[in-house]
């Protein structure tokens, strides 16, 4: 009897201790002392007219959009001492006109940025050549997903695959590919009787795809001439496929330093969390501040670039898409009752979405027609 009583006490104490500890379980948020304020400079010079852009921003604490830095003095200097300033084309975005300095394979370039009285200088970057010929193809597929609550869903997607053929195999070479898509969105039609002078906007949306998946090849390790069937993008099918839809793969020839930089970024962005992961760390860039104690992020690279495109039209997608800006009878009646030519009334009275009229408000939208469209 005494023995049984002892057992009961032991079991009871065990259960009590279990409950005590269980109550403070399930903590996942780390004690994250977030910080920010560091300057971020991401820039490139290429051997073509595209991609000669420098973006300058300041990192802000977690979940806040970066602060774009306007009014900076940005210039590129080549190996001959020639200099040319980048021109600010949008807040925090600076573009090179290529009037004085034109990127060339074999050239060496350095970027200098002045912000708030401090000077930030990049390391010298040599432009390496393009080595591969790329080709894109697509496949239609249905992607199965499981939501966090365990519900199974399926989505129609377009999978884009790249084949690359290396024209030569130097002892050391490095390549990076980026993916983007471009398509048009046209503003909605409005009744001519009320808006006789209205002409719908035609916008070109250019989105970077698979930005978190950095596609790299280290030519010192991979020596195959053909790099085939690499999945480079998975794009859910939507209304953007109802007109011309381009997928562009941009090949960038890297030098060793820029490859190291991108491979470090890659190791941070593609990690899925396994016990075999290399411990993550801060990625040092190639800028030095005139204030040695200041930490500055980002990289300036000199890369030759080549773009290959894949055109898809609505003939390739056997699906019908509803126009989200299409109006019903009731909305139509509300539209024609607004004051004559008062487009702003449509938006203020929430009859139509602003983006349906001004597609230029959509993210990554431009009214400038790309040359290939």
């Amino acid at each position, binding site marked *: 009897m005494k023995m049984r009583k002892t057992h009961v006490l032991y079991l009871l104490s*065990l259960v009590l201790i279990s409950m005590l500890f269980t109550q403070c379980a399930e903590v996942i948020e780390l004690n*994250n002392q977030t910080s920010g304020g*560091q300057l971020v400079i991401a820039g490139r010079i290429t051997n073509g007219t595209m991609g000669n852009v420098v973006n300058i921003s300041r990192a802000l604490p977690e979940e806040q959009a970066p602060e774009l830095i306007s009014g900076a003095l940005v210039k590129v200097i080549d190996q001959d001492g020639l200099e040319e300033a980048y021109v600010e084309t949008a807040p925090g975005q600076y573009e090179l006109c290529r009037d004085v300095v034109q990127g060339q394979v074999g050239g060496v370039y350095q970027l200098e940025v002045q912000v708030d009285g401090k000077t930030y200088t990049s390391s010298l970057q040599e432009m390496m050549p393009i080595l591969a010929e790329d080709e894109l193809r697509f496949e239609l597929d249905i992607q199965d997903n499981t939501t966090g609550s365990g519900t199974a869903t399926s989505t129609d997607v377009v999978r884009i695959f790249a084949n690359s053929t290396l024209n030569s195999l130097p002892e050391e070479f490095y390549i990076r590919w980026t993916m983007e898509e471009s398509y048009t969105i046209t503003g909605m039609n409005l009744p001519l009787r009320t808006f006789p002078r209205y002409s719908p906007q035609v916008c070109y949306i250019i989105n970077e795809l698979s930005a978190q998946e*950095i596609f790299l090849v280290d030519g010192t390790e991979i020596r195959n001439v053909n790099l085939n069937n690499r999945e480079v993008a998975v794009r859910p099918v939507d209304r953007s496929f109802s007109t011309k839809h381009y997928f562009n793969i941009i090949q960038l020839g890297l030098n060793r330093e820029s490859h190291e930089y991108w491979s470090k970024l890659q190791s941070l962005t593609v990690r899925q969390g396994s016990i*075999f992961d*290399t411990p993550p760390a801060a990625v040092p860039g190639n800028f030095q501040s005139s204030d040695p104690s200041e930490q500055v992020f980002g990289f300036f690279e000199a890369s030759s670039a080549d773009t290959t495109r894949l055109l898809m039209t609505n003939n390739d997608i056997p699906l019908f898409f509803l126009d989200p800006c299409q109006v019903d009878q009731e909305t139509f009646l509300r539209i024609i009752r607004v004051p004559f030519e008062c487009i702003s009334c449509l938006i203020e009275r929430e009859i139509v979405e602003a983006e349906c009229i001004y597609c230029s408000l959509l993210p990554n939208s431009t009214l400038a027609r790309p040359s290939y469209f």
Partner: protein
Amino acid sequence: MDPFLQRTLRSVLMLFLLLISVSLWAQNKERVVVGDPSKTSTGRVRIQGQVTGKEDGKGLFGATVAIRGTNIGAVCDEKGNYEFTIATGEFELVVQYVGKVNKVYDLRVIGNGVLNVALEDQVVTLDQILIEAEGEDKNIQRISAGVNRLNIKEIESLPAFMGEVDIVKSLQSLPGVSTVGEGASGFNVRGGRTDQNLILQDGAILFNASHVLGFFSTFNPDATEAFTLFKGNMPAQYGGRISSVLDVRMKEGNSEKVKVRGGLGLVASRLVVDGPINGGKTRFLVAGRSSYSDWVLGRARNIDVQNSAARFHDVNLKLSHRFGTKNKVNLSYYRSGDFFRFAQDFGFEWDTDILNFSWNSSITDNLISTTRFVSGVYKSKLFDPSGIDAAEIDNGMKYYQAQQNFFYTPSDRHNITFGADLVRYDGRPEIATPIGPDSGILAERVEKEQGNEIGFFVNDDITITKDLAISLGLRYSTFQNRGPYDVFQYADGTQRLVENIVDTVSYQKGDVIANYSGFEPRIGLRYTIDDRTSLKLSLNRTRQYIHTLSNSTAATPTDILQLSNTYLKPLISNNASIGYFKNFSDNKWETSLEVYLRDIDNLLDYKDFVDLLLNNHLETDLIAGKGRAYGMELYIKKNKGPMTGWLSYTLSRTEVQIEGENPDEVINNGEWYPANFDRTHNFSWVSTVQLRGTSSFNWNVVYSTGRPINGIVTNYRIGSTVVPHFSERNEFRIPDYFRIDLSFTFGRDILKKELRDKLEGRNYLGTLTIGIYNILSRKNAFSVFFKRPEDLGLIPRPHRLTVLGAAFPNITYNFRF
């Protein structure tokens, strides 16, 4: 109270407790006088006799008769006869034989004499025999601090993951021992990394003692006799690792009859057959284990886990032969193999093969020799079966060991161990081989060096007075890194970077590339305050000439074994510990409080983002620094009564300091930072409640502070790529770890009386163990990693990586006959 009355009452109480404990242990402890009282001798006298089985009166070949706490003793011949010499005095004599109840005598030797002993059959299970030839107060009397011994019974009672009894897992419940987490190979002892533990199986080095990435250990519990973990003062005969020694002794075959034992579990089964050949002069043991765990993975919800595979096997073969009463040889072969594949993404294979020969010889009554030769190979393979980087990478180590130990007991005050050992390492080249026609991987080969490690040692355990004992040891170790190998030369005054390589020196086979040597003093001191209390001090230096390079969160089977060379210096550790040991209630309760301090030179850490695979210039990516560890260990163990078990708590800190000359050789501005396995608090409570007979209820409660990791302090964008900016090294900690396991073991006792009576007298014994690992289904974090949430948000969020996030029920049937 009157002091005299107090003393008297205490003595009566002690005597009472002693009587109870004696009856509980069923271990006869008689007082015996050997010699003729009328002819008292001085100096050495001869004791002889015969050890027989009480039931059949037959001599027990191989029974041991030993004086506790010394190396004096003898092994019985075919007829059970023994004889040895000893100085006159008072001793404790232990007579042991596998399958029989031990007999312990309070022996008073006054002259030559005969002592015949009859041992009873063990009426409980075979594993319940206490293997150690030490008394119940061993923790008080043992000279060295920081030594933990567990017998198989204690391990078997622990609730085990998937029902597999595990030596390494049970170690982790001891104070000062921790692990990175579930699924991590190895264990950490007193701030040491996993590669700083010397793991010996019958004296042979094991480089990887883990199955299935650390979920199970490679020691078959049915083939294991006992093990000792030296985490403080390592005796001088052990060398080559700086942190600890895990010395695992495997069983020898039974000398009387063939016995079979085994277990059937949900994921693995095991079988051991052992017995005599040639009338018992030769004994054999065959043990095997194999898993069939893929079905568990197949039931996972995650498709990747469903398509994964994990399996293992191990085999122990052992032949023992006695030549007369003074010589014994053992020949054993051990093999273990593992296969792990994660979906179609990557996988590992690792194998160990060891051939082990040993010869024990009793040269004189007080001089015993042990000679050992070992040939081993550890092979590991990492493979990526798909994509343009489909390839497999092989590496590993071949090694040979030769060891000569002498145990000399010139008097009852000295136990001297001396000898020498040699380990030859032949690093297997790292070879990358492309898989399939689509692979763009370049076939590559990175050569590895060879090395010879030689140690000479002497150790004397000296009993100075009844209360004071000291263990003085000295080891001299020397290591030669040898070719063939190409050593890069870097421009003078420049940083070790690939671009600064100016020359290559090629060493031919046998050429000495680098040479290191040094003394390793080992000092242990014990002062016995009273019969139940002692104070111990340990001071020692250890050196290590082989490093396991691993730049992942946890040690993996494919970690690179790297010898000390021109650029990578040996690890040198200075270790100190002091402990207070006290037993209560006639050794019913054991307690200890130990404080330790360790500093390590030439500790290696890694530059950020280092890739160690196929790297022939590791010196450019590794940085040497300092390590330090300090902590306090509390241990409370209950040895007797219906409930037994232990509670351990460790408060500790393990830190690293890296301050190289160049900016990328400095970590955390040269400040001390916590090692990635540092756990401030580590608590473990292991208990068994004996129900009826062999039935028991067991539990295991584990709590530890989360280990350090690098965390995100901010994010920024490069183009559209969101880049997390990580903190300085190990600035954050993952959530704390907590787990409870329960198990019930049911023996024959739970059966109805009629059935019990029917089975009575049968040799067959079966037990059923039902348990639940992680009964709270707690999703303990192995690590925290950062990735974008599933809803395609761009900002990486901390995600908990849980290896075993559910309750794992298990059922195992163990049998023996």
